[in-house]
C-alpha cells in the first residue's frame, strides 16, 4: 500500500478509530493484525518471509536469552566454589554457544535477504565474467521479487538479536509482541530502523486518547502528505526526463537534474518519514527521528549524522564499531604500526571499517553497481575530509572566518552540492553514464542553456514551478524556524483562528496542488523497494 493512496487513508481511519474504541489492552494486538493486513496488501504470499524472520529470530533469541539466565543462576549458586579462572571459562563457554546461535540467525536471515534481493545481481555479474571468458555458458536469473521492506525489517530484527546477544536487553518472551516489533506497519516501507528497547515501551503500552499527541501526529501526517504530493510527485517527472535522456540533457542540465533530485528525494523521503512518525504518534507510539534538517549540514560527516539517521546509527553500532575494535582488527593495527609506523597503523581500523561500512551501505541501497560506487564515493570523501582536518585547523587558526555567517553559508552550500553530486549516482542507468555526465558539466558548460526553453519541456509548466517555489520556501521557513524550537509547539501557541486557517490552507493546498490522480504518474516512494 502506498502512503499516498486512498486505500491507505481509509486503512488509517479504520485503524485509528478501532484503536481508541477497543479496550486498551488489545491495542497492540490490533496493531499486529493491522500490520499483517497492511503487509498482505501486496500479496499474501510475501507474508511468508517476514514470518520466517520473526519466528527464527524469536526462537534463537529465546535460546540465547535462556542461556543468560542459566549462566546467572549457575554463577550465583556456585559463587563460593568457583575460582576466577573457572568463572571466566564457564562464561566463555556460554558465550561461544550464544555466538553460534547468533551466527546461525544472522546467516539465515541475511541469507534470505541476500537471495531475494541480490541473487540476480550476482548471477548477472557471473554471466558477465563468463561472457568475458567466452565460455558460451550463462546462468539464468532466478527472478525473485523482494518483499516489501525486507531490507528495513531484516536490519531492525538483526539489530534486536545482536542486542540480545550483547546482553543489552532481555529477549521478548511474547512471540506476538515480538511479531509486532518486526512488522509494525508504519515502519515497513522506509524505516526508521528502530531499536527494541527504544520502541518496546510505547509500542506495547496502553494508550489513552490524548488530544495533544493526536493533534501533533495528524499535523505531521498532513505535513508529510504536503511534501510528498505537492513537491516530490511534482518534481519527479522532471528528474526522470533529465536522467532518462543523458544524451539530451548535459552540461548545466546535469546540475539541474542534481538540484531537482536533491529536492525531490528530500521531500519524498522526509515526507514519507513524517507520515510514518505522525501515524505512530497518533497511536501514542514514539519513533526516533530519521532526519534533522540534513541540508543545513556543513560537512559530509555531519550530513550523515542528519540524513537517514537510523540507518547510519545501525551501521555504526553493528558494523563499524564491532569491526574496528575487534581483536583481530586491533592485532592487525598493531602489526601495521610495527611495520609501517604509527601514522598508518592507527588509521587501519578506521579506514578498513569505514570502507566496509560504505560498501555495505551502498549495496543495501540497491543491487546494482552504481550503488556500490555511490557508497565508495561517500567513503572516499569522508576519509579525505578526515585527513584534511589538520589542514582546516591550520586555515582556521590563521584566518578567523570559521564562525562568520558567510563562511558557514559557504560550508552549507558546498556540502549541499557535494552530496547532490554523489547522490545522482542513484539516478542514471549506470556508472559510466554518470561519470560521463559529470564530465559534460565541464565540457558542455553553458549557463545560457538554462534559458533555452528546455526547462519547460521537462513535464513542468511555469505555473508548476511557481507552486514548487512557494512550497519549497514554505518548507525552508519551517525548517529554519525548527532550529530554535519544535515547530508544532510554536504552532500550538498561535491563536486558534490562525491555527485552524493554517491547517485548512495546508489541506486545500494538498487537495488542489497535489500531483496526484489521473494524468500524474503515481510514483512510489523511492525507498520502498528496499
Amino acid at each position, binding site marked *: 500500500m502506498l502512503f499516498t493512496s486512498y486505500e491507505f487513508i481509509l486503512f488509517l481511519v479504520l485503524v485509528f478509530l478501532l484503536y481508541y474504541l477497543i479496550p486498551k489492552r488489545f491495542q497492540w494486538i490490533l496493531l499486529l493484525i493491522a500490520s499483517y493486513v497492511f503487509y498482505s496488501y501486496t500479496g499474501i504470499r510475501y507474508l511468508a518471509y517476514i514470518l520466517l524472520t520473526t519466528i527464527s529470530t524469536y526462537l534463537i533469541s529465546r535460546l540465547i536469552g535462556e542461556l543468560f539466565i542459566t549462566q546467572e543462576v549457575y554463577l550465583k549458586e556456585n559463587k563460593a566454589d568457583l575460582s576466577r579462572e573457572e568463572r571466566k571459562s564457564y562464561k566463555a563457554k556460554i558465550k561461544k554457544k550464544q555466538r553460534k546461535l547468533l551466527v546461525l540467525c544472522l546467516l539465515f536471515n541475511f541469507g534470505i535477504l541476500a537471495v531475494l534481493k541480490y541473487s540476480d545481481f550476482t548471477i548477472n555479474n557471473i554471466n558477465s565474467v563468463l561472457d568475458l571468458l567466452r565460455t558460451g555458458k550463462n546462468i539464468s536469473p532466478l527472478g525473485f521479487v523482494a518483499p516489501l521492506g525486507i531490507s528495513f525489517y531484516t536490519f531492525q530484527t538483526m539489530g534486536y538479536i545482536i542486542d540480545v546477544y550483547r546482553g543489552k536487553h532481555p529477549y521478548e518472551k511474547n512471540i506476538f509482541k515480538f511479531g509486532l516489533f518486526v512488522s509494525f506497519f508504519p515502519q515497513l516501507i522506509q524505516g526508521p530502523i528502530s531499536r527494541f528497547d527504544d520502541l518496546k515501551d510505547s509500542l506495547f503500552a496502553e494508550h489513552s486518547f490524548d488530544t495533544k499527541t493526536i493533534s501533533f501526529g495528524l499535523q505531521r501526517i498532513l505535513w508529510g502528505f504536503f511534501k510528498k504530493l505537492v513537491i516530490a510527485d511534482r518534481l519527479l517527472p522532471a528528474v526522470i526526463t533529465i536522467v532518462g535522456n543523458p544524451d539530451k540533457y548535459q552540461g548545466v542540465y546535469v546540475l539541474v537534474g542534481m538540484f531537482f533530485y536533491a529536492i525531490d528525494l528530500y521531500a519524498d523521503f522526509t515526507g514519507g518519514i513524517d507520515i510514518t512518525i505522525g501515524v505512530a504518534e497518533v497511536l501514542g507510539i514514539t519513533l526516533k527521528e530519521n532526519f534533522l534538517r540534513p541540508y543545513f549540514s556543513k560537512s559530509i560527516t555531519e550530513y550523515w549524522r542528519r540524513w537517514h539517521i537510523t540507518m547510519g546509527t545501525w551501521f555504526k553500532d553493528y558494523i563499524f564499531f564491532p569491526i574496528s575494535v575487534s581483536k583481530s582488527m586491533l592485532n592487525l593495527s598493531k602489526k601495521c604500526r610495527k611495520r609501517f609506523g604509527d601514522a598508518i597503523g592507527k588509521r587501519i581500523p578506521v579506514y578498513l571499517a569505514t570502507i566496509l561500512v560504505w560498501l555495505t551501505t551502498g549495496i543495501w541501497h540497491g543491487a546494482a553497481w552504481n550503488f556500490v560506487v555511490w557508497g565508495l564515493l561517500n567513503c572516499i570523501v569522508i576519509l579525505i575530509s578526515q585527513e584534511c582536518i589538520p589542514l582546516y585547523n591550520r586555515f582556521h587558526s590563521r584566518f578567523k572566518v570559521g564562525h562568520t555567517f558567510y563562511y558557514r553559508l559557504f560550508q552549507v552550500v558546498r556540502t549541499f552540492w557535494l552530496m547532490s553530486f554523489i547522490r545522482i549516482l542513484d539516478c542514471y542507468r549506470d556508472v559510466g553514464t554518470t561519470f560521463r555526465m559529470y564530465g559534460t558539466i565541464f565540457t558542455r558548460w553553458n549557463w545560457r542553456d538554462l534559458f533555452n526553453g528546455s526547462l519547460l519541456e521537462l513535464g513542468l509548466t511555469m*505555473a508548476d514551478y511557481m507552486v514548487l517555489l512557494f512550497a519549497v520556501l514554505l518548507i525552508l521557513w519551517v525548517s529554519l524556524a525548527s532550529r530554535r524550537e519544535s515547530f508544532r509547539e510554536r504552532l500550538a501557541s498561535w491563536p486558534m483562528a490562525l491555527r485552524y486557517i493554517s491547517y*485548512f490552507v495546508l489541506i486545500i493546498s494538498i487537495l488542489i496542488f497535489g500531483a*496526484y490522480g489521473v494524468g500524474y504518474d503515481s510514483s512510489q516512494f523511492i525507498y520502498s523497494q528496499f
Partner: protein
Amino acid sequence: MKIKSKRILINISAVSLALLVILFIQELFMPKYMSEIPEGNLVEEYYKEEKKHDVIFVGDCEVFSNISPITLWEEYGITSYIRGSAQQLIWQSYYLLEETLKYEKPKVVVFNVLSMKYNEPQKEAYNRLTLDGMKLSKYKINAIKASMMEDEDLITYIFPLLRYHSRWNDIGSEDFKYIFSKDKQSHNGYLMRIDVKPVGYIPKGRVMADYSFGDNSYYYLEKMTKLCKDNDIELILIKSPSVYPYWYPQWNQQMVEFAKDNNLTYINFLDKAEDEIGIEYDKDTFDGGLHLNLSGAEKFTRYFGEILSNDFGLPDHRNEEEYKEIWQDKVEFYYAMKEDQERELKEYGYLKSYGAVAQSIEGDDKSNN
C-alpha cells in the same frame, strides 16, 4: 464542562465551514462544458425535465447527434428524450436506462448498437463525460464500477475534486460564471449543429481475426432486453446512419440474429440512409460522415418517426394541453438556436460557441475491438 462543549461546538463549526468551502471549490473546479465539449452536459440536463416521454433513446454520439426530438414532436406528436453521451458504453447505457425507469415509464426504448464493439472500459475522459453528470445513486455507482480504467478510483467520482483539482491552472471566467447553474444546451438530449462538412474518403474497416462481439457486451445487451421486457417496454435496436466508425457486415449479422432470437426489432438505418431516407452525405453531415447535422438529423428523424408512429403505435400528443405547453418552449428554443447558429456561421465561418472544435475528437476515435 462548559468550556469543553464550547470547544466541541467550535470544532464542529470549523469542520462544517471547511467542508462547505471545499464543496464550493469542488463546484468551481468542475468543467462546465459551456464553450467547449457541450456533450459533457447532456446527461445532467435530463434531471430538470418534465419526465413524460414515450420514447427514450440511449447510446453514443450517433443518437445525440442524429435524432431530433423536436422534429418527432412537430411532425408526429411523439414525446422523446435522448439519454446519450460521448462514446457511451453499453453498460453505461444500461445503467442510465435503469435509472431513467425510476423516473418514468416510456413505451419504447431505442438503443444504437455501435457500442457493442466496446467490450471493455475505453477512455477515462469519456467516462467522465458520461458519468459525472449522473446524480449519485446506486445506478451511478454500478456504472462507475463497470467503467473504471485501471488507474481510476471510485472515490474520485464521488468527490470529483480529487479528479479535477489538476485544473487549478486552467480555471477561467466560465468556471465562475456557471458555478451554480448552466444554460440549457441540448434539445431533449439532441446537440444541434447546422454546419456542413461533406464526407470525404471513408476507409473500409480493416480485416479482423474475429468479429464476434465480446461477452461483456452481450451480457449487458441481454440485461437491457430483460429490463425492457420486465417493464413492458418495446426495445428497438438500431444502427444509426453515420458512416464511420465502420459497421462491419459481420457485426450487422450478429445484431440481426440477436434480434431474431430475442424477438426484437433491429433496423440498420445506415443501409437505408441514401436511398430510403434521402440523406445526402455531402450536405447532411458536419464532420465528414461521423455525425449528421441538423438537416440530416431531421431527415432521419422524419423517417424513423414514421416507423415509430405507424408500426409501434406511439400516440400523437399534439392536441393535449399539458404537452403543448411543455413543448412550445422547446420548439422556440430550437429555432432560436438554429437562427443563432446561422448567424455565427455567417459571422465567423464556423460555430465557435457550439464546441465546433470538440466534435472532431470523436472522429479521431478509430479504435477497434
